[in-house]
């Protein structure tokens, strides 16, 4: 069984890891991890405004699982791209403070030192199965850490809103779209 950081008393003590949407001891560690690994990924990915290259493998793995049932299987790759585009545009309009928190969330999810212990996904996101991803989401939703429960809720909101703001999603939910003025 893999050792879990969440289960160690020091980290699960409420308060120590209180994320509270701001800099915490934990995120300072993550930040340190980023700078130590020498790959501070702050540049947007090609063709995108707010998402970084390092965010994409994770999102490309998670989005198809979240859109299951909302899109026919053959449309999933295209829908994933469309969702990424909408998500990127939404993030590009967030306040810098909220964008920074979102980037920190993605950092926690994608950096080696935090991904395994916090998500239970020890390999790369590209290799994670749909079941691995569902387990990770359930683990965060039911975590005793505010940080992870908040991350779960933000992640779902960002992705699901990005998809359902797109006209491609509307036929399946019976929304005829806005009237013509």
């Amino acid at each position, binding site marked *: 069984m893999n050792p879990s950081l969440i289960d160690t008393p020091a980290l699960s003590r409420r308060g120590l890891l209180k994320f509270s949407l701001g800099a915490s001891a934990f995120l300072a560690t993550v930040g340190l991890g980023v700078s130590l690994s020498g790959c501070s990924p702050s540049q947007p990915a090609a063709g995108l405004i707010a998402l970084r290259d390092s965010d994409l493998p994770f999102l490309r793995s998670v989005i198809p699982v979240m*859109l299951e049932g909302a899109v026919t299987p053959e449309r999933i790759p295209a829908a994933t791209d469309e969702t990424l585009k909408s998500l990127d545009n*939404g993030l590009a309009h*967030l306040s810098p403070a909220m964008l920074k928190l979102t980037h920190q969330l993605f950092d926690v999810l994608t950096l080696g030192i935090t991904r395994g212990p916090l998500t239970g996904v020890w390999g790369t996101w590209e290799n994670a199965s749909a079941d691995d991803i569902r387990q990770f989401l359930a683990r965060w939703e039911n975590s005793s850490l505010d940080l992870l429960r908040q991350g779960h809720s933000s992640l*779902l909101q960002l992705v699901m*809103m990005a998809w359902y703001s797109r006209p491609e999603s509307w036929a399946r939910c019976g929304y005829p779209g*806005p009237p013509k003025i």
Partner: protein
Amino acid sequence: MPVPDPFREGLARGWTTYNGAQLTEDLTLEADVAIVGSGAGGGTTAEILSAAGYRVLLIEEGPLKTSHDFKLLEDQAYSSLYQEGLGRMSKDGAIIILQGRAVGGTTLINWTSSFRTPDQTLDHWAAEHNVKGHGRADMAPWFAQMEQRLGVAPWLVPPNANNDVIRKGCEQLGYAWHVIPRNVRGCWNLGYCGMGCPTNAKQSMLVTTIPATLDKGGALLYLARAERLTIKNDAVVGIECQAMDERCVAPTGRRITVKARHYVLAGGGINSPGLLLRSEAPDPHERVGKRTFLHLVNMSVGQFDEVINPFYGAPQSIYSDHFQWQDGTTGKMAYKLEVPPLHPALATTLLGGFGAENAVHMAQLPHTHAMLALLRDGFHPDSPGGSVELRSDGTPVLDYPVSPYTWDGLRRAFHSMAEIQFAGGAKAVMPAHSDAHYVKTLAEARTLIDGLDLALYRTRLGSAHVMGGCAMGEDPKTAVADSLGRHHQLGNLSIHDGSLFPTSIGANPQLSVYGLTAQLATALAERLKTP
């Protein structure tokens, strides 16, 4: 035939406006009165002061968008017209906060419900918060004046099916329900009030008080964030503003210095206290930002055999106050019941979950109804509200702890909503909570609701009504401003917005802001006659 866009016509006639994003050099602007914020409080104040002959400058952080720009698309509306690009949340991320940020403020994107401040609330302020001159009889003429100005009247068109559930359910149960007064003229009954009114039927500040101000020679500066009040010897001597880019995300580096005789804060809850905190304004009793209220909202979803189409039709037209004053003004947490409109992006987060489960629920959207409870916070000692703080980058954020007293109100509200939904014909009901699912009888719903772990993140919480944080009252120990909205420590600074409320209102607050600020601005116009 295209809908006329009176704001664009006004611009073509030569109104004085400045777009912060397009400034190529720093700017200094002067006025008799500078007003920070162009929503309900700022717009109302601007019209009254400019009609009295004063040169007014309105300063708005957000962009200028007019009917021509409103495409009725959720993503465009949320990213351009809402605070922080819809990213505004309580500090712990558990409560989503919907507030407008564009010329017209929240009046541009609210759902048009227009209630006078309840008598009980006004009585409570006088008795408990040392507020003078805002009694029932004092306020009635101001509400009447603003109702006339903004076309406020009960909605005469039949309610859409989403709202009609409240009527049917309450009729069945013998609960009181009423028609909601709305601030519209010639409304097309479309259902997109939250994305900017494309027909200019909604009498927001964009089409009423701001055009009136500009017609009188007033000026509008937009995409400009009021960064700091410059304070010397107990007076404000200027406002330093940062020009913002077209997305209203990043400062462009250009600065605008504003000089005026008198300054009015009208940025609403969170932003007005935020500006005072950033400016290190005198606050000897540490009242700034304290007692900020939200009308915390929880929701319940119902499925119907008939078509509801909750995305079309006037979004709010029926309400119930059956549970609002049952236990007096200061008893258990009480609530008002209304409905939200459900467009797909907001609906998916309300329904919650992801994958197959969410998809099945979303596929039923045309047969889905939702109800919401607005919790009346701030009337009981166990409901002290939240506190506005500054983040490391100087932007404000609200820390709003949810007390056990509040959770009790949320649980009772889940019960009330489920009861009315079943009585109104729902075949299944689901409280908006991560652990909930659709249940088919009221008995099942009661068991489900009693067993829910009402915790942050599991319970879907929101707010569209930020109130308080710069409370008014005669005692400087407990209030930031006096009952005339005058800052207790700074002589030429007034506050004219919902941040003045000593508690929440107990009803959608826009008409409360209009009436109060019309009264305060009229008194200010008199005072300014004496140099």
